[in-house]
């Protein structure tokens, strides 16, 4: 009897043993008891945390959101992916991280593995940013032979926009010349005509790229040749760090987004670039801001060439290759981007990607930047160069812009030195430079 029971137990254990011994991750068709999401701590994951329990109550799957600050999330994901770890079933990713994760082959394809297709209510650029290799623009040399797949679905439709005090200026600036004229006109003691987000590396980079692009400058051309030291690029950074800086807040070289929002919210500044999360989190937050209802939000103004280019800063959800619950994770993403669920997500502070929601007048009442965001997405905003070397490039570029903002170097000297450093870094990484 004992022997029979033992044999029975061994036989029934075999599937579990085989499962435990399987070397690679599986698409995981079985319903798991829990899904773990690696998320960025802050305004970006707040709405996700609020709607996740709804999914839990509908499906019985526990949703665990593990939060990390921005920098740590990236490091955590890279090291997890390098080890092919299965700690996370889903991960939030800033869109400039996609090239790194795409090149690493760290994510499960959502289209071929889980049947994701494009939805006409969501702008195509939103799908493009989650696709690797990128569907347009230069493709890294090592990635040119790979077939394109969708690896990430945007859940935070961030695009960098422009904000100004509509209670003071009757017309919206359409060009950077208008921005400069307004900065000069409204600048007075303790009220700054323009706010520069000039802190070293990512802040200075994010703040200046839309201006760089709108002036016809760029970091790379279409064949990865560095053009940061081109006349257009130098003109753009000269415009920011010399012309606009005359009317900017003191200490601009150490200003980050929170400092910018504070200046706008206490009514000490006229205009700046902005991200949606800054609008909902501070500038239009009742009880926090003194300028609620006084700000207007528009797409990035036009440069000398007549183009204004916003910058994408989408946050995507992807499924790590190491996840053993791929199917369930994919179901969660599908659930989250359904129109009704996304509406609930927006009502909880989320930033949508669906055009129908961005143009919904009722939602627009509490989110005054929605029309500008819809226009920015429709106008095909730029994304940061799709290279796995972006973090290095951004660090070099953002340091150079910071040096120019601080007056430590002329824009020309700063950009020329940065261009040389970027050429060296890209050459080492196998890019033509």
């Amino acid at each position: 009897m004992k022997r029979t029971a033992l044999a029975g137990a061994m036989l029934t254990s075999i599937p579990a043993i085989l499962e435990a011994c399987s070397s690679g991750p599986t698409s995981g068709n079985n319903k798991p008891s829990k899904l773990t999401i690696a998320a960025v701590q802050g305004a970006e994951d707040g709405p996700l945390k609020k709607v996740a329990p709804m999914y839990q109550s509908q499906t019985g799957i526990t949703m665990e959101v593990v939060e990390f600050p921005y920098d740590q999330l990236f490091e955590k994901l890279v090291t997890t992916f390098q080890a092919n770890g299965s700690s996370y079933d889903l991960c939030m990713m800033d869109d400039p991280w996609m090239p790194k994760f795409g090149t690493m082959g760290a994510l499960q394809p959502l289209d071929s593995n889980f049947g994701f297709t494009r939805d006409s209510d969501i702008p195509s650029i939103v799908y493009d940013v989650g696709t690797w290799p990128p569907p347009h623009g230069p493709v890294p040399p090592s990635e040119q032979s790979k077939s394109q797949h969708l690896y990430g679905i945007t859940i935070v439709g961030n695009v960098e926009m422009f904000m100004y005090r509509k209670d003071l200026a009757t017309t919206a600036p359409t060009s950077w010349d208008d921005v400069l004229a307004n900065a000069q006109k409204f600048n007075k003691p303790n009220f700054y005509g323009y706010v520069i987000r000039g802190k070293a590396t990512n802040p200075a980079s994010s703040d200046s790229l839309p201006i760089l692009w709108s002036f016809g400058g760029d970091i790379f051309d279409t064949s990865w040749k560095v053009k940061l030291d081109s006349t257009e690029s130098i003109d753009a950074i000269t415009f920011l760090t010399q012309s606009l800086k005359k009317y900017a807040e003191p200490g601009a070289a150490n200003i980050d987004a929170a400092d910018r929002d504070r200046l706008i919210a206490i009514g000490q500044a006229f205009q700046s670039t902005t991200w949606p999360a800054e609008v909902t989190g501070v500038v239009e937050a009742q009880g926090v801001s003194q300028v609620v209802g006084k700000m207007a939000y528009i797409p990035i103004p036009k440069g000398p060439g007549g183009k204004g280019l916003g910058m994408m800063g989408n946050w995507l959800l992807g499924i790590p290759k190491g996840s053993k619950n791929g199917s369930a994770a994919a179901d969660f993403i599908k659930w989250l981007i359904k129109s009704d669920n996304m509406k609930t997500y927006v009502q909880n502070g989320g930033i949508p990607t669906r055009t129908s929601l961005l143009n919904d007048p009722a939602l627009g009442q509490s989110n005054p930047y929605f029309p500008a965001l819809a226009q920015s997405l429709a106008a095909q905003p730029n994304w940061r160069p799709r290279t796995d070397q972006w973090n290095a490039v951004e660090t070099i570029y953002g340091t150079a812009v910071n040096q120019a903002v601080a007056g430590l170097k002329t824009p020309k000297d700063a950009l020329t030195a940065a261009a040389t450093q970027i050429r060296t870094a890209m050459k080492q990484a196998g890019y033509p430079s």
Partner: protein
Amino acid sequence: MIRAWRRLSRDERLAYLILLPALGAVFVVVTIPFVLVIIQSLSTEDGTFVGSVNYSRALGNPLLYEAIRATGVYTLIVLPIEILLGLGFALLVHRTVRRPGLRASIYVLAILPLVVPPVAIGVVARLIYAPGYGVLNVILDRIGIAHQEINWLGDPTLAMLAVASVDVWQWTPFVYLVLFSGLQTVPRESVEAAQIDGASGWAQFRYIDLHYLRPLFVLIIFFRLADVLRVFDHVFILTGGGPGTATQLLSLYMYRVEFKFFDTGQAAALAVVVLVSFSLLYTLIARVLPLERA
């Protein structure tokens, strides 16, 4: 090996057995990672052996020398100030405060900065120095010293002083505690004899106290040099290494090479270079300032 083991006395065998767990732990947490770092410094990301290429790239990068310069300036600011202030406080308390309760209170106060997380200190320091709303500028304005806003974090020199001031605030108490405990070891009879002979306070310090404190200075310099190499959080929060690279210390630079540039080979080479350089520096310091009392 077995024969050598058998030749040992029972006590010696016991001593080695007791040491074994500690040695094993050191092997696991120090030796293995160190060997892995050396291997990484000689390889590409995919493990291909490349010899000294990573070392050439690390040493050929001008940003390394900017980081070394910034770290050197930072060290030259914080170490002397912390040692002088810590010594001053230690002598003051040792010679003037007699009540045990008061001494205990000072002891607790001195511990506080050491146990506060560096991130929290960085955030508070930012509230002090930040442009626009920094408390320091408000105070300077109110007391009439400076009516124009001082750009503490945007000017290279001031930014370095600002980040160094945070270090001085946090680590002077450490120096104080070490030197104060050293002063407790000075024999009372020696001091009393010197006082009877009419020795001045300076002479007591110069010829008695300093003699007992000398090995502790070496200890402090060792610890603080190691700490300076690890300084990261408050610099990251206060300036992010800026303006430009003015406050990009070695630790921040190495972090960026590893986690921003994802250049693991160069980062490993940097780690080895720094380790070897500081080992040499430590040897030099130990020779100049003897660890044992003469």
